[in-house]
């Protein structure tokens, strides 16, 4: 995520809560937010980079398991990524990885507490994929340009990426549940045509592949539209 520094600096400066925030920095923050939210869908390191894909592929077969996995990811991954990034400024890379793993192990207890009221047999069909989230190699995804970024922006990036992942996990879970069992969140939808093969991992790969292709197609078309607008502006 490059930082665009070429903003006009002649804006009027006024003190705001004692910190000197001028119009330029407000503009920069708002643009930075849009970029970060934009990355929520298009440059999501978790999905585009394929970080925590294995639970999505084989465990998320119902809407409820999608919600459980996304809650677990939110609770476990956000603190561990942030703390491992913090520690990476002061400790070598492998030490920060260990700290991240320990924090995620620690956070798995509240995650378990949050998930268990969802449904009694939630942990049977998630199976071993709940502990897998503890250890998926998310630490390597966010460290590619760590040095230049202010700490606050890495937090928003991580939160946006994880929420994007949660959205995709729930989307995939509901699609697979409707196709495979014809129910949604346990309630029958009256569809009698059920494809039980959709719940298998091989269709998980194919479905994630197709959804990423749709996301890329939207991104290409938006980039295409942006260039179109820019070109039309140059023509005028």
């Amino acid at each position: 995520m490059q930082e665009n520094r070429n903003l006009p600096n002649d804006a009027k400066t006024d003190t705001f809560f004692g910190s000197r925030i001028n119009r330029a920095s407000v503009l920069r923050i708002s643009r930075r937010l849009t970029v970060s939210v934009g990355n929520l869908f298009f440059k999501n390191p978790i999905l585009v980079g394929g970080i925590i894909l294995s639970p999505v592929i084989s465990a998320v077969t119902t809407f409820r398991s999608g919600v459980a996995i996304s809650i677990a990811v939110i609770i476990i991954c956000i603190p561990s990524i942030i703390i491992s990034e913090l520690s990476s400024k002061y400790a070598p890379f492998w030490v920060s990885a260990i700290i991240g793993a320990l924090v995620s192990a620690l956070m798995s207890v509240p995650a378990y507490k949050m998930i268990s009221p969802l449904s009694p047999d939630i942990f049977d069909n998630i199976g071993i994929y709940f502990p897998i989230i503890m250890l998926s190699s998310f630490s390597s995804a966010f460290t590619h340009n760590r040095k230049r970024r202010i700490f606050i922006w890495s937090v928003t990036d991580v939160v946006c990426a994880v929420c994007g992942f949660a959205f995709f996990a729930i989307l995939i879970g509901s699609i697979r549940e409707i196709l495979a069992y014809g129910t949604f969140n346990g309630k029958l939808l009256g569809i009698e045509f059920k494809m039980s093969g959709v719940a298998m991992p091989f269709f998980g790969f194919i479905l994630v592949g197709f959804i990423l292709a749709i996301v890329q197609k939207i991104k290409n078309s938006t980039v295409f539209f942006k260039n179109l607008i820019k070109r039309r502006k140059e023509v005028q």
Partner: protein
Amino acid sequence: MNTSRIQKKAPPHIRTSRTAPIILLDVIISILPLYFMAYIYYGLRVIVLGAIGALTCFLLNLIASALSSQKVNIYNIAPIVTGLLIPLALPAAIDYSIVICACAFSILVVEMPFGGCGFNFFNPAAAGIAFAAFCWPTSVFTYTEPLVKLPVFGKIVASSYSPAYYLKLGAVPKLDLVDLLTGEFVGPMGTSCVFALIAGFIFLLVRKVINWRTVLSYFVAVIAMFALFPRIHSDSISSVLLELCSGSVIFGGIFMVSEPVTAPKRNIPKYIYGFLIGIFTVLFRYYGGFEQGVAFAVLILNIFSPLLDLYSEKVIYYSRRVRIARKPKSSE
């Protein structure tokens, strides 16, 4: 003589008359006797199933090539061939939505992402049948008795099992030779009549549409495995006959193994490819999850056919070096 229409084209300036549509038309002609025999056993429903399969594959291929911004080519008949092959391996009593889903899977998932019709890595017909076997295991492997005309629309209760199912349980189904060859026993729609299959195979061989090397080595491997390791305790001849004619072993051999796009291109890899498919078919039938092994064996070997291609190039490259080095110094 006006020179307005002259264009500059690359040599050679004359081409063969056997272009791709004609070759694929030959394949369709060799499939028609199977539909005719199925029509005799199961009535008009078979023709409707074939038509629906072919239509969905053809239309989806046009949509897919339009979506992925390629030139839409109406004369491309290859998806019709896959559309006709898929219903043949399924029971006649199957309902139409399953055939449509299998055909959609075979075109949208197997061919579109890899670049359209000529660039798929996996055999679309085999992938469609494998997907159908996974999604609807009960309705794909329960059949109805032949010579009972099925209604074209409406739900049909299919209750009886094919001899392959009994073979998997270890029992020996009582079928005499004539029934086996004419295909008058419970089984998939088009794969049971051995005469029609062999007629189609000879037609394809004579028209030089398929390469006999893969199919020959496939049958050698299959017959050898069935003869040497029979899973039913009877003499090897009857075990070979029973195993060959029960499931879709011969049908897969003729139409799925010989599919040119996903098979390797050189002669030596063709033998290896066919032989390994034969072995894997028998392994899948003995230890696999389903009674029908050809589709999965073809899919597994399609992973290695590009590898076979590249390494056969290397082998030929070095064998030519050796041949040149060993040739006696010509007197030039």
